[in-house]
């Protein structure tokens, strides 16, 4: 660095340093001051060199050459992270993927949020003044007294009060002319000529958040052009939403599907209404206690009509200026740079009201320093920079160099980061600890399983023969081994569909699936393979052959993938089935074709997974609910499992509050499914995340989307570490050049000798 600065100084003083082969064919470096022999004034080459130097020095002001960030960000209060897949949608009506809610979660404020620290996951008000408590109505719309029997409930009504004084981020949609009319409405093609991004609109404005903005967004869920992924589900509950969608379609279709501004205020929705400036009402069909969880997702965030009108103007879409790419919210951050091809930047929303950091948490949070900032106003970080990184190697190395504040752990870097103790406990390696890196682990609210198609004639159905076959396979497929080999011990063997942390999951002996495991010496043990073989005999498949026909039993596994990376996994699976003499035929295909097979119900055995939408057992048990079958009904019950008792209990459990009564029903439901074994229960993955020592208030929260406001960083410590870790090493470059030019010397001498000889002859 110092050397480069000196060179730059030399260049500025017109002292030109030239490295090259000169007339005497010697390698030399000469420094010539104002001689004019090489050059008296800078030429194109010199300017280019200067330009290159300046460009290379940009970002080197902190003593590092490899910093991907500008030098003026050296000690800025900025959080740096990466994203692998560019988000498809940032419109809260459409956005559902985890790589999208990273952004929408910080920008949009739904009425509720999850407490950052408390476990089990607990909802609390965000934009709402208090937790909404529903009241119930009968078929005639008469309010029912509390504690009335469920059969009488026809509607649930939620009145949601929002906090006054919340303001939107500065945005051109709110900019006003002197007469109070919108500054940027009715824009012509000429007006848009010099506009390429949202930042090109010079004037911005803001306004207070109103209840009507939440109502507007709920109406947008039914907009025919938006394809909201939750429309189907919400149409079953929100009164009039399905009819509303049809009504909007009848308005849009005569316009030839043109996507102009459709002012949804003109079309009332029966189940949603504004009660006053800060209150709105949502009326649901029947009882749906899980609705409050949806109120914590960006789907139910506010959308101001001004924004919809602004983005719907002709010519905006052509420039990719849409609500889908430039969100407008009231949250702690606003998206200021949206280049999904390279970088997304969120900055502190200057109009954000501030929010106190939680003062209470879970056991151990205080000891872990998670309550050190209790009561302090959030957000703590000014800016968030997310860079597109498609490959894992650069992402991991940038994390190690201190240029990303957090990282996951890929399988290729696992050994470098984590060491496992004899008891299987994961800990950081010495290299990571020396760098002050912190490891945060948690079991995800997810389940990955292998399912049997219950419509299949061999493995499916309710017969004892098929049930025993499924149980035998469940014992044979050793998921503990799978977790150890393929996941670096990052998983927990599942005993049922409900993952740890969700009500209904039971630890220890109480939670054991007795058909596959046994509890011995205070630990979980898989049943011996001899039991599986005995079950095969009882099922009529001794030694893996059908006792009647004598034909070998072949089971077909349908799975997406099939690339070289999957080969080891498939081989392992074949070995598991071979333990009980079953031949496994892996039919690998692309994801779309696999989906098609699942929808048609033609797969026999398949692999599937589910990430929780919300922390309620209903969100997992519904994966086995009969009317929710995948085949024919396009539901999420991929195994097409149907058990009348299970379905009846599901109907009861669904609307109950958490408590002993609900737990008893869930336990019964789990017993039924464990007995029937429609799934090989698989595993619940463990998440391992790494954070540098300068990142504080880190706690894994699988439910919350808006966790970045809680994080705090120490930019000075980071700047110091970066310099320490990234000092440029120049000697190998110099050595390479020296070797290259030295290697040329004998050749040049030989050539000159030949030339001289030629001249003398």
């Amino acid at each position: 660095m110092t050397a480069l600065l000196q060179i730059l100084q030399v260049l500025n003083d017109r002292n030109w340093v030239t490295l090259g082969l000169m007339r005497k064919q010697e390698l030399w470096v000469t420094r010539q001051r104002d001689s004019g022999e090489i050059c008296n004034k800078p030429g194109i080459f010199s300017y280019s060199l200067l330009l290159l130097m300046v460009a290379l020095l940009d970002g080197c002001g902190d003593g590092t050459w490899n910093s991907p960030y500008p030098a003026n960000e050296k000690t800025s209060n900025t959080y740096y992270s990466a994203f692998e897949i560019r988000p498809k949608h940032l419109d809260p009506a459409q956005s559902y993927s985890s790589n999208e809610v990273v952004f929408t979660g910080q920008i949009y404020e739904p009425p509720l949020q999850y407490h950052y620290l408390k476990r089990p996951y607990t909802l609390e008000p965000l934009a709402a003044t208090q937790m909404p408590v529903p009241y119930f109505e009968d078929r005639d719309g008469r309010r029912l007294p509390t504690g009335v029997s469920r059969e009488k409930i026809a509607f649930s009504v939620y009145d949601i009060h929002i906090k006054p004084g919340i303001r939107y981020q500065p945005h051109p949609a709110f900019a006003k002319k002197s007469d109070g009319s919108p500054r940027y409405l009715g824009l012509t093609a000429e007006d848009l000529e010099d506009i390429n991004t949202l930042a090109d609109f010079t004037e911005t404005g803001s306004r207070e958040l109103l209840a009507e903005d939440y109502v507007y967004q709920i109406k947008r869920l039914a907009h025919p052009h938006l394809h909201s992924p939750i429309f189907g589900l919400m149409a079953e509950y929100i009164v009039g939403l399905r009819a509303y969608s049809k009504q909007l379609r009848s308005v849009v279709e005569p316009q030839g599907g043109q996507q102009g501004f459709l002012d949804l205020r003109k079309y009332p929705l029966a189940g949603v209404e504004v009660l006053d400036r800060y209150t709105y009402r949502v009326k649901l069909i029947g009882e749906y206690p899980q609705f409050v969880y949806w109120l914590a997702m960006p789907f139910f965030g506010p959308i101001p009509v001004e924004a919809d009108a602004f983005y719907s103007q002709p010519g905006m879409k052509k420039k990719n200026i849409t609500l889908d790419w430039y969100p407008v919210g009231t949250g702690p951050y606003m998206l200021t740079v949206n280049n999904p091809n390279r970088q997304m930047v969120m900055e502190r929303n200057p109009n954000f009201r501030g929010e106190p950091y939680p003062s209470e948490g879970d056991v151990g949070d205080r000891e872990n320093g998670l309550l050190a900032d209790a009561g302090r106003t959030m957000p703590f970080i000014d800016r968030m920079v997310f860079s597109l990184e498609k490959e894992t190697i650069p992402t991991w190395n940038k994390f190690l160099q201190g240029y990303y504040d957090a990282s996951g752990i890929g399988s290729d870097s696992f050994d470098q980061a984590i060491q496992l103790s004899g008891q299987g406990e994961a800990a950081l390696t010495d290299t990571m600890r020396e760098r002050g890196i912190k490891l945060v682990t948690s079991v995800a609210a997810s389940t990955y399983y292998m399912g049997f198609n219950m419509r299949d004639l061999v493995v499916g159905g309710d017969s004892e023969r098929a049930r025993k076959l499924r149980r035998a396979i469940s014992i044979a497929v050793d998921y503990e081994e799978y977790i150890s080999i393929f996941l670096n011990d990052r998983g927990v063997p599942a005993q049922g569909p409900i993952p740890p942390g969700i009500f209904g999951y039971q630890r220890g002996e109480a939670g054991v699936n007795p058909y596959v495991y046994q509890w011995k010496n205070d630990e979980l043990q898989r049943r011996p393979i001899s039991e599986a073989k005995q079950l095969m005999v009882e099922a009529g498949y001794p030694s893996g052959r059908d006792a009647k026909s004598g034909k070998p039993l072949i089971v077909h596994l349908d799975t997406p993938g099939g690339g070289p990376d999957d080969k080891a996994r498939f081989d392992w699976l074949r070995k598991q089935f071979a333990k009980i003499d079953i031949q496994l035929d892996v039919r690998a295909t692309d994801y779309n074709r696999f989906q098609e097979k699942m929808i048609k119900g033609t797969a026999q055995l398949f692999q599937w997974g589910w990430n929780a939408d919300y922390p309620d057992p209903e969100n997992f048990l519904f994966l086995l609910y009969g009317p929710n079958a995948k085949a024919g009904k396009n539901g999420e019950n991929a195994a097409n499992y149907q058990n009348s008792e299970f379905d009846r209990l599901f109907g009861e459990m669904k609307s109950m509050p958490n408590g002993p009564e609900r737990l008893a029903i869930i336990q019964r439901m789990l017993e039924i499914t464990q007995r029937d074994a429609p799934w090989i229960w698989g595993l619940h993955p463990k998440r391992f995340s790494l954070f540098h020592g300068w990142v504080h208030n880190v706690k894994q929260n699988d439910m919350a989307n808006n966790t970045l406001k809680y994080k705090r960083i120490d930019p000075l410590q980071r700047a110091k570490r970066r310099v320490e870790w990234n000092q440029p090493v120049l000697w190998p470059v110099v050595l390479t050049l020296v070797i290259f030019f030295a290697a040329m010397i004998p050749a040049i001498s030989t050539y000159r000798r030949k030339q001289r000889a030629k001249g003398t002859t």
Partner: protein
Amino acid sequence: MLAYIVRRILYALPILIGVNLLTFWLFFIVNSPDEMARMQLGQKRVTPEAIEKWKQERGYDKALFYNTQAEGGAAFTNTIFFEKSVRLFVFDFGSADDGRDIGYDIRQRMMPSLALAIPVFTVGLLVYITFALIIAFFRATYVDYLGVVLAVALMSISTLFYIIGGQFVVSKLLHLVPISGYDGGLAAIKFLVLPVLVGIIGGVGASTRFYRTIFLEEMSKDYVRTARAKGMAERVVLFKHVLKNAMIPILTGVVIAIPLLFMGSLITESFFGIPGLGSYTIDAIRAQDFGIVRSMVFLGSVLYILGLLLTDLSYTLVDPRVRLS
């Protein structure tokens, strides 16, 4: 010459239609509109109605090539192929499946691609020709033998190795430049140093060998022997006469590549996080976004045809004996 150019442009039309037809056919052999919809709408809670609506809005609910429901010319025009293809010929690329305007994205991504491709192309050409000349200059010496062995070794190694190795050595061990990323304006240079270096080194083996062969062939011609017999220095013979006469075969390979520089580099851009057209194409293939795939294939074909035309025209410039007819 104008008539020749016009004729070549007219010849290009059936080629472009053929390329478009082939792209369309190949794409829809592997993907159906239903699969495309499912890919875009996500994995959770996607209803058949949503898939139908998605297809309807984007015109994927029609027949692929021939609409049996329509009559007359409409049987051909009211199809996905016709509707998606015809606008390409006026360079209206339409929207990607995620709603973004493809033309806008291409314009935005062209510059990063060029920022990488132009230095690799120009500096690379300079380096390859220089190396080839040096090797030819020292022919039958250890420099020649070593150079050829090195060139064969370099061309036997995968580009991916150069990329990962370059990132490991230059960025991770020596800390000289950022490992990946991109920025606008002058700040882009520090991100481009390594990919440009890798691009040049990746091509040095094959190109140096190729140019060396050209130079050696040229050096065996009579006029070179005459020049040497006149007592000209080897340096003058090589740089003044041989280089000039070797330009035609060099031009063949070079001019055709110029228009294709716009298309970017698929792997390099992806590994170095350069938001160019190469990574745009790769992303589109992964996302099964037909709109982008067909646009990029079409653009590539147009530029390739343009490259061929430019090559033919450039012959007349370097060799007056060549006449276009």
